[in-house]
Structures are given as C-alpha cells and as structure tokens.
C-alpha cells in the first residue's frame, strides 16, 4: 500500500475530519453504529490519528510507534475510518466488513481480527488502566520516544477503575501518557447531569495531580495546538485533555440527542446529513 500524505495544516485537518464524518454517516446508513460518540470525538481523533501519532500503517507492531487505546471502545468506527485515512486499510473495507461474521470491524474494537487494534475494548473503564500499564512498560524498556494515547468517554468516568488508574498514573510519573476525555455530556440513558454529574472534571484530574488541558473539542486549530505543545515524552506528569464536545456533532437531528448514542439512518437521512455537513463546512470556510 502506498504511503499516504497526511494532513498537516488546520485546513487540511478540517477537510480530513469532514471526510471521516461522511464515512461514518455512510456506515451508519448500512449498520447500527455508535454514531453520536463517533461524531463527538471525530475532530480529536482526526488530529490524533492523521496528524499527531507516530504510527506506521505497514507495521502495527513497530516498537517506536505511539500506542493508542480506545477506552471508549464503542467509538470503533471513528477509529477505523481514521486508520483507513492513513492507509491501514480502506474505508471500503470498513463499510464492507463492519458487523459481518468474519469481518475485521465491529461495534467494539477486537484485536483478534484487526492488528491495528492495540487493545481489545468495549467494557468501559478497562482501556485507561491498561494504557497506564503500557506507559509504565515503555518507561521500563527505556523507550522514551513513544507516547500512549487513550481516549475515554465522559460517562465512562463513573467507573471506579478510571480513578484507580488516574491516581496511579501520577504516582508512576507517566508523562508519556496522554488521556483524552470526550466530554459530550450524554451517556446512553441521558445526560450526565441527570445521571451522575461529573462536576468540574478538570478540577478533579488537577486534584489528582494531572496536567490538565480543557478546550473545545471541535476547534481543530485548538486541538492541533494542544497536541503540538504536549510536554516532553520523558516528563513526569501525565496529561489529560478534557475535550468539550457535542454528541452527534455536525448532523442537526443528532446533535445533543441521547437517542443517537447508537443507531442507523435511512438513505434519505444519509443524503440530507451529507448535504448538511458539506454546507456547514463551506460556510465555515467562507467565514475564514
């Protein structure tokens, strides 16, 4: 497979994020996917996978790669389309194989069939502590160039194991660990405010000793800036990005609707959503 040129500029990344969203919606017209949380984290994931991560699609076991753990394992589709964009496989592969009996792609990421899945996830509260162990393992091996990126949901913060790991990552001085919280405010049953409100999540992580960056998770320039300015890999404080996002971002009828946590859309909805996305993208471009 040809090495693919990756987006470098903010404009290129915005275009790349648009493509990821279109790919997601097409899949959503074919299969039930966790579209709401895919769309909320799509911008962060685009910058992370297509710009930030040091990763060779030809060699998913390359020792010097940055590691990625999808702790919110249901965002498998947005991960797959970003991996497709850098040449791990094609978007067609994802559309064709998703939720098929021998396919590589499904509702939750599975390493048994897909070597680009570092850690199989799905049950919440697992990926984060596993990522901590990986970060400690990298340190122990003397690998001071690879980072471990782990993406969590906000609802997932209710799991006790998240806070067990949050404490220990600081204790172990895992400055090579970057945790990302997709704070879209909604979980499967409704809003966090109604279920188990997180309060000031940034302050909670800060109190645990983390380097906390809190920002708009749809502002590509901003996201890129925070990745560009990460502390050195060999620093001693883990970093968490609290990304304020909108569940279903980009598709009017899905935005901030808990019922679009997972679902399937019709052909008509797909066509309308793509028009919607394209027109918003054009408007933003015109506004500069």
């Amino acid at each position, binding site marked *: 497979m040809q090495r693919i040129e990756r987006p470098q500029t903010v404009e290129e990344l915005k275009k790349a994020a648009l493509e990821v969203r279109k790919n997601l919606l097409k899949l959503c017209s074919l299969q039930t996917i966790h579209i709401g949380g895919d769309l909320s984290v799509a911008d962060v994931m685009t910058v992370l996978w297509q710009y930030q991560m040091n990763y060779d699609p030809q060699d998913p076991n390359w020792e010097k790669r940055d590691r990625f753990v999808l702790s919110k394992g249901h965002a498998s589709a947005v991960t797959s389309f970003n991996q497709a964009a850098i040449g791990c496989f094609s978007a067609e592969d994802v559309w064709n194989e998703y939720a098929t009996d021998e396919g590589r792609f499904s509702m939750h990421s599975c*390493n*048994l069939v897909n070597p680009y899945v*570092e*850690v*199989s996830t*799905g*049950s919440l*509260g*697992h990926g*984060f*502590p*596993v*990522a*901590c*162990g*990986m*970060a*400690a*393992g*990298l340190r*122990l*091996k003397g690998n001071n160039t690879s980072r471990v990126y782990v993406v969590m949901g906000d609802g997932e913060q209710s799991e*006790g*194991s998240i806070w*067990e*790991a949050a*404490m*220990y990552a600081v*204790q*172990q001085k895992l400055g090579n660990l970057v945790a990302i919280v997709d704070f879209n405010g909604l979980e499967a049953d409704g809003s966090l405010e109604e279920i188990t409100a997180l309060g000031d999540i940034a302050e909670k992580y800060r109190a645990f000793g983390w380097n906390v960056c809190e920002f708009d998770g749809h502002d590509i320039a901003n996201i890129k800036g925070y990745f560009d300015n990460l502390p050195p890999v060999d620093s001693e404080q883990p970093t968490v990005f609290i990304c304020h996002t909108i569940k279903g971002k980009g598709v009017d009828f899905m935005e901030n609707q808990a019922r679009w946590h997972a679902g399937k859309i019709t052909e008509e909805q797909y066509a309308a959503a793509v028009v919607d996305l394209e027109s918003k993208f054009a408007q933003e471009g015109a506004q500069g």
Partner: protein
Amino acid sequence: MIKIDFEKKTFLRDVLGGYMQELGRQDEKVVVVNADLMGTCRNRSFVASYPERSFNVGIAEQNMISFAAGLAHEGFKPYAFSMAPFISMRGLEQCRTDVAYAGLDVRLMATYAGVSGGISGATHWSLEDCGIMCSIPNMTVVETCDEVQAKKLLEKSLDYSGPIYIRSSVEPVIGIYDDSYDYEIGRADTIMAGDDGAFICAGVTVKYAVQAAKNIFQKHGKKIRVVDMHTIKPIDRQAIRTAAATGAVVAVHDHNVMGGLGTQVGQVLAEEGIGVRFANIGLKDHFEPMAHASYLYHKFSLDAEGLEQAMLGLLK
C-alpha cells in the same frame, strides 16, 4: 520423584512470593504487581532486589490486573499477587477481558485459596475462584501442593504461553516431591499407586488424601491411588480415566462443590461415559461463619478422617 515428608511444614506464600526474587534474576522481563498486599504475598525480597520492576498500585485490584495487562502488552511477564477472592472476583472482568481475551502472559498469583483464610472469614475465602477461572477461555488454572512443586511451577511459568491462574493455600503443606520431580503443567502426578480406589486432589487437600490413603491401607489393606491434579484446567483426562478404572473416585478440593475440582472431574467422567462410584468433597454450597481452616476441613470432611470415611463409603 516422590518423597512424602509429613514433618516438613511449608507455607506456600513464603515459597511463591520469595522465589520471585530468583525468577527475577533469571529473566529481566519478570515484573511483580501488588495491590497493597506485597508483605502478605511475601514479595519483599523481589521488591528490594528489583525496585524498578516492582509495582504496587495500592488497594485497587481492578487497576492491578489491567495495569499488569498493559505491562504484558509491552512484552513483560507480570506476576500479579493478591488474595484469591480479590483477583478472581474484584478483578474478574479485568482477568477475563484485559488478560485472557488478549491472550497475555500474565500470572495471577492467588493466595488464600478456599477457606484457608480461616478466621478472616468469607470475605477472604475463595469458594468460587476455580469455577470462575476455569470458565474463562484461554485461562490455565493450577494449584500447588508443596515447596518443590511450587518452585518448578514458577520456573515453567516463565515460558508458558497465555495467562495462568495460580491458586495456593495459606494453610501449611507437607513435603510431597523431591528435587528430581519433573513437573509439567497439564500432566497430573500420581503420588501413591493403588487399584482399589483413587483420590483426585490438589493443593492443601493433597496432604489429607495421602494420610487417608495410608490409613485405609493400614486398617483395611486397600491400596488407594492418590492423584495430584495440580492442573485443574486443562485437566489431565487420561489420569481421570486411569483413576476411574479403580472403580471408586473421591475428588476433594478446598472450594465450593460447585465449580471446583470435583465438578471438573465429574464433567470428564460424564463426557467419557465412565460409570464409577464417585464422591465430590468440598464446601457445601453455603456460607459459613469464620472459623479456623482446620475446623472447617474437619466439618466438611476434607481432612484425612473425612476422606477416609468418604472412600470407605464408596468401597462398601
């Protein structure tokens, strides 16, 4: 190979915890993960020798198992120590999803097997762990009964592929094997030969089965086979067939009768279509108030006297 020594008194946590230092010397990939029971699990010598390869996550067993999985993802050989109930239940989903599903070489070092936690009470007993762990795909389940075996098991664990749940009692055990013992994960060992009946046992109950077999021979002249089924999964089916050929099998395990060694043996007997007189001795599927382990072993017929009665009951 067999050198039964009733006078020898070994505490397996001293052996398993202490031998980690030697294992760490042999293989620099060995790492030890604790959850605030580093002293209880006797890992101080490893921690002192290899502080950089020692992790203590605090009282957080879920994190301990997932963190160990992360270390294994990076090529290390983690030995995660705690009490059996906390590994097998508090950290169960982590054992299953983060370790077994991923097929990682994590060693789950579970002390306080069965009711050996005694007066600590049911919170610190593991009546269920063997059944739980045997039901997890990819998981190898072993239990050790003496010092020589425990060390050889640890040696074998260095290069064994896939996760292993290693169960051990905190009650003292006796000497069973000598240094020439050739231990293999997955192959049961016959401690005493005999064709009149067979005990199938593991861990702390081995010493009681050996004593019961000796008593039965002295009193009744019957030769009872004693099979150390140290690998509970994958279980040695041939050893079960051979034991069943004696006509009477007593399986004994410091575990609930549901899901323990007796359940695993019974399943093989049924699958093989073997009709045999069979007794499944263990804890009787209810919770007990805290008591000393020796009292509980006697109450539930796991001790030598109880096993003797169980076997004689089948031989009638």
